[in-house]
């Protein structure tokens, strides 16, 4: 039986090696996705263009402007002369932020009257606008403290914040776990459902079923290579996360890899379930993309926080395996927790495996009758 199984696996390896697209998805996609998330998709900004409408035109106001640009995050694009010019920069897309300094800015600043500065941002990109305004506000407060040594109000609450587990608020700490969850899902679930659907579509499944191979062995032979490959991918992403973006694994690496395997099996059982309901590769592809990839990307808490979602979507997010796996990954990698803290998430994944396999088995039996 082992000999037969080896012949089967060998054939699967030929398929994978011969198909450039499969290879690209297997190894190109994880690398590309990590690099894109890491370097391109970020709310951090450098050299944002700022337009300044300085009504005051005195020493203090130019000091403020210098202060803003000293950080390296802002770059003065244009000095405006009238209110009418404010929108021009936004329309042409050359400006990210406009700061308006009123005429009596310095007078107010030194005479206990609240000094006012207006910030105008492009609300059509809310995330960016928020980040810019936040940062500009910090810079202006900073400037105020410098200029005006003693606090305006001696009874201030000094807030000191500390970000646990991710002190620098690196976005990589979020996207590395998320990417692992997605890539493993795509490879394990989508690729296996595709490869099984391909055998059906090309008619070779008939030949396999007529052969003495037990059906269970056919399924195992189809999924085993992908289980191994997705595991390699998980390690690849972890290594890239660690060396390129400095994402640590503070918890047990062994536990992490074991649970990666559990998740891979969850995804594989989902993939075989999809394949029992699809006759063609296109069918399997559509089901995987719409039924798996889209909800997992949008509703797993990877991109949008779960707590701010409408209740209905929160319910859906609870039936997505990736939701639990991302929690597990963040727990082990960032918070360094042991199994006892994530036992609920692990149990849910195990339950899902049993449920998917039962459904697959039922479907399979019906087909044989």
């Amino acid at each position, binding site marked *: 039986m082992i000999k037969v199984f080896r*012949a089967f696996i060998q054939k699967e390896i030929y398929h994978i090696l011969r198909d450039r697209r499969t290879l690209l998805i297997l190894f190109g996609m994880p690398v590309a996705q990590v690099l894109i998330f890491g370097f391109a998709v970020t709310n951090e900004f450098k050299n944002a263009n700022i337009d300044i409408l300085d009504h005051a035109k005195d020493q203090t106001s130019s000091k403020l402007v210098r202060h803003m640009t000293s950080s390296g995050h802002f770059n003065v694009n244009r000095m405006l002369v009238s209110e009418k010019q404010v929108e021009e920069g936004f329309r042409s897309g050359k400006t990210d932020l406009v700061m308006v300094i009123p005429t009596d800015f310095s007078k107010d600043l030194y005479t206990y009257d609240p000094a006012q500065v207006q910030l105008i941002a492009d609300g059509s990109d809310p995330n960016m606008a928020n980040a810019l305004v936040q940062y500009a506000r910090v810079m202006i407060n900073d400037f105020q403290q410098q200029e005006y040594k003693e606090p305006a109000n001696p009874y201030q609450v000094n807030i000191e914040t500390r970000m646990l587990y991710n002190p620098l608020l690196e976005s990589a700490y979020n996207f590395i776990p998320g990417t692992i969850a997605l890539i493993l899902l795509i490879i394990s679930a989508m690729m296996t459902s595709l490869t099984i659907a391909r055998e059906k579509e090309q008619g070779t499944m008939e030949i396999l079923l007529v052969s003495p191979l037990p059906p269970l062995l056919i399924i195992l032979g189809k999924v085993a290579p992908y289980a191994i490959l997705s595991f390699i991918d998980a390690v690849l992403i972890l290594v890239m996360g660690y060396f390129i973006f400095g994402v640590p694994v503070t918890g047990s690496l062994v536990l992490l890899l074991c649970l990666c395997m559990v998740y891979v099996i969850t995804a594989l059982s989902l993939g075989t379930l999809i394949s029992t309901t699809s006759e063609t590769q296109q069918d399997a592809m559509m089901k995987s993309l719409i039924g798996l990839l889209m909800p997992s990307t949008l509703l797993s808490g990877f991109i949008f926080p779960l707590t701010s979602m409408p209740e209905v979507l929160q319910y859906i997010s609870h039936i997505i395996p990736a939701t639990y796996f991302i929690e597990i990954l963040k727990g082990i990698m960032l918070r360094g927790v042991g199994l006892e803290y994530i036992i609920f998430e692990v149990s849910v994944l195990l339950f899902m495996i049993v449920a998917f396999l039962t459904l697959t088995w039922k479907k399979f039996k019906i087909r044989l009758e």
Partner: protein
Amino acid sequence: MKFNPADMQAYSIEVDHLTKKFGQFTAVDQISFKVAKGEIFGFLGANGAGKTTAMRMLTGLSKPTSGSGMVAGFDVIHDYEKIKTRIGYMSQKFSLYEDLTVKQNIRFFGGIYGLSKQEIRQKTDAILHDLRLSEVASKLVASLPLGWKQRLAFAISMVHDPDIVFLDEPTGGVDPMVRREFWEAIYEAAGHGRTIFVTTHYLDEAEYCDRVSIMVAGKIEALDTPANLKKQFGSQTMNDVFLKLVR
């Protein structure tokens, strides 16, 4: 049963009132027939007459609703797993892996039928030599002309020396020259005592069979040698016989 009585003692296939129902619909309705060892048995019928369902029962893919049958000495209801080791199968869809080379295909199918490395090597050499494919042994199957592929698929379906080979419309889409060659290969296989169970859409091919059965709406309406069938229906060709039955 007029076919070659001497051989009839050894049947490869024997079915008795074999029936398959899907809910209310009866796809195969109490068919009974015997196929002798080494016989070329043509299994004809219009699309939807129940040919494929009947064949699926004989190959162990589908469980009969009622009736009984023996294929290659094993019971179709209880021992269908054993049947699978004694039969070969080639389907109407092209049934090799296009993205594997000729050699890799032979090795794979030899492997899943449990042949040893040495046996696989011998089989590979024999097939490559018989089909004159040695030069393209390391080429992808996808690059071969359709006729070659069909011949190769037929050879590979017999890689484990099965007692019976089921051919489901094996010559679909190939030109007359290749069909002729294909039938020569069928005769050769039958000459070695192998039973050939073949479905086809080409009624001229029915003439090449030792005996022919014609299925209409789940039942076998006629079964005899092509010559006897033509006599019985007063027709010149098998095509005529078929049309008379199906209408």
